[in-house]
């Protein structure tokens, strides 16, 4: 089973927890599989909140503090709900050199949020990526799966308009 193949958009909470339990069982409740379990948890629930952490702790027979400790160490995991659309501004060195920072600053300004935050209407979350591998075309950003390249500050609003 690959993380990418989870189809969870239509599930209710109960089914999601059932799926999580199934994942934990597949991973044989081994503590060494915790990070892989957290990946699944995040793709099932969108984020790994306190309730999900408690369930994982209980099912894997690990202290809650351990779950939280590991979870918060890794920047890929989120403990709060994220927006409908994730904007990831590439700040790999190449995009940085080619003007990624002003793009990020502009986004922060028009969205009124900082990196790692979500707008009040839950429309956008703002993140940084260090290199998306499109270095020849920087500066670039990704919204959800879509890559936007050779950006300049003035075109940003127009891009956001495409996302409800």
């Amino acid at each position: 089973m690959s993380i990418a193949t989870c189809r969870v958009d239509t599930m209710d909470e109960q089914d999601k927890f059932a799926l999580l339990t199934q994942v934990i069982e597949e991973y044989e409740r081994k503590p060494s599989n915790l990070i892989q379990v957290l990946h699944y948890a995040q793709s099932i629930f969108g984020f790994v909140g306190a309730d999900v952490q408690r369930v994982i702790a209980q099912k894997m027979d690990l202290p809650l503090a351990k779950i939280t400790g590991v979870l918060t160490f890794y920047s890929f995991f989120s403990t709060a709900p994220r927006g409908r659309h994730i904007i990831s501004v590439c700040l790999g060195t190449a995009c940085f050199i080619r003007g990624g920072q002003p793009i990020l600053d502009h986004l922060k300004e028009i969205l009124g949020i900082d990196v790692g935050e979500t707008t009040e209407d839950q429309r956008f979350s703002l993140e940084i990526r260090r290199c998306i591998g499109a270095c020849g075309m920087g500066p670039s950003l990704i919204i959800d799966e879509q890559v936007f390249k050779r950006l300049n500050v003035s075109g940003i609003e127009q891009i956001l308009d495409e996302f409800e």
Partner: protein
Amino acid sequence: MNSNRGEDMYQTGIESVRSKKDLETIQAEFIQYGKKFPWRALVCSGASCMSSNCQGVKDALESALEKYELQSAVDVVVTGCMGACSTGPTLIIEPEDVFYCGLQPKDMDELVRIHFLEKTICREKTFFNLNTGEYIPYLKDVPFFKGQEKIVLQNCGRIDFRSVEEYIANDGYLALHKALTQMSRNQVIQEISDAKLRGRGGGGFPTGLKWKLASKNESDDKYVICNANEGDPGAFMDRSLLEGDPHGIIEGMAIGGYAIGANRGVVYVKAEYSKAIERTEEAIRRAREINLLGESIFGTDFSFDIEIRIGAGAFICGEETALIASVEGERGEPKLKPPYPSDAGLFNKPTVINNVETIGNVAVIILKGAAWYSAFGTEESTGTKVFALAGNINNSGLVEVPMGTSLREILFDMGGGIPEGKKFKAALPGGPCGGCVTEEHLDVPMDFESLPELGATTGSGELICMDEETCMVICATIGSGELICMDEETCMVDVARYFMEIAQEESCGKCIPCRVGTRRMLEILERIAKGQGKEGDIELLVELGNVIKDSAFCGLGQTAPNPVLSTIELFRDEYEEHIHDHCCRAGICPDLSGGPCENVESGAKPSDKEL
């Protein structure tokens, strides 16, 4: 990306590959299959081309082929990264080896008609040389590819990464067969040692020696780990290799497993690399299916299997002890060495950790021998290095060059120099742990020996180029291969601040010098960039930097100050201008006046360059 090859793609009927003869059968059958098509059209689906809609180009190519009833004449093959990322989407047509680039779906009808029906070259879609104003149709003539030596990347961009048959047709798994059936474990290790293979992950540790240490430890369980965390912020070599030639990595790991006596392998890959994960997963599944992984491979008593572990966004997890902690499900904090992983690594068992590119060299060394391999590169740094060339450079992308190739050749011959006629300012081989190389040192050979003499390393292969307006603060290493080129519009203070911000963000917090020290340094740099720099700030940065280097627990902290120290050494006048004149000559720092900065009497010594 899907391909029409789908069902009619050649798949071997052999259910379990047991012998060399089986490999040869697959090879012959594949060649037979290929003969059905007069042409092969290779469509690059590296990360950069995917972001430029290579899928659309491929779809349009296929509809055009259908329209002109050419489907049975042209085999459309989806490949990994061809390297010429800034010209994507790209297409190679074999057997002529014509290189088309900058394609759009709407171009494909005409291209198909001209190339395959009229049998001439569609010139306007070939590579345009900015310097001579000419189109260059053949791949071998394109400056970006000239001077490259593809050993590790031999399959990348040349074969269908999904096809184990095609990998085998290109001599794949012959090296594993040779190792298992004709060589003892020690002979394998000796071959790798004789080839003088050194780690490409940044450290340059001799791979043969590392394997030998692990092989000598008796244990029921041992592990081979492939480090694909690729944390350097401008690096995409390892990712491209995994995406474009996953079987090459599987074969290299299996040979490593045989050499040290390990039955299990782990690929630790960062979570953002979803394509690399997907393609590697698929390759592992396929290899298992025909028994190239699993129990008694090639009928020998050697068993080996690989699992993928997905990282979760932590640069530090590229450090080997932190990586091990992460695979064990812990916070990725580094541990004290010794014990070294070769003695007590994953789950306390003897473990070899190698970088993706290092592993990518293994099969070819075993197949062609140490003597063949060490003819490439220099006396002490053999073979090639893959660089991710980016920044202020015309042809950015992935280049593989013999060790010892000069930075000038890479940046100006292959890279095509700085865009818009701007002036070269500095290159940053080795990314965040390295230092800068300026004009006067452009002829330094890129190898393990020469760069450290400059206070630089080859790093991992990230190579970033910057212009004069980039504000930079770096030191150089061959490191991992990140190679960033910077032009005159690069502000060196800003660059230093950028790398310090990453170091600070990625510091795991275990030791004080790194946790607190990088924050203090970042604060000072931010102050300087805002025009609030104080007398003595530069001295304080140097002092702090040196203390952190000497006292940090692991490589992250020990190298974090390098960009700052290197830029201070090479571009001290820019720091002085920021502090004393509130001026950023590159015009990057928004709170300061832009250049040219008047060289007011400020205690700043004009740089030698200006004199």
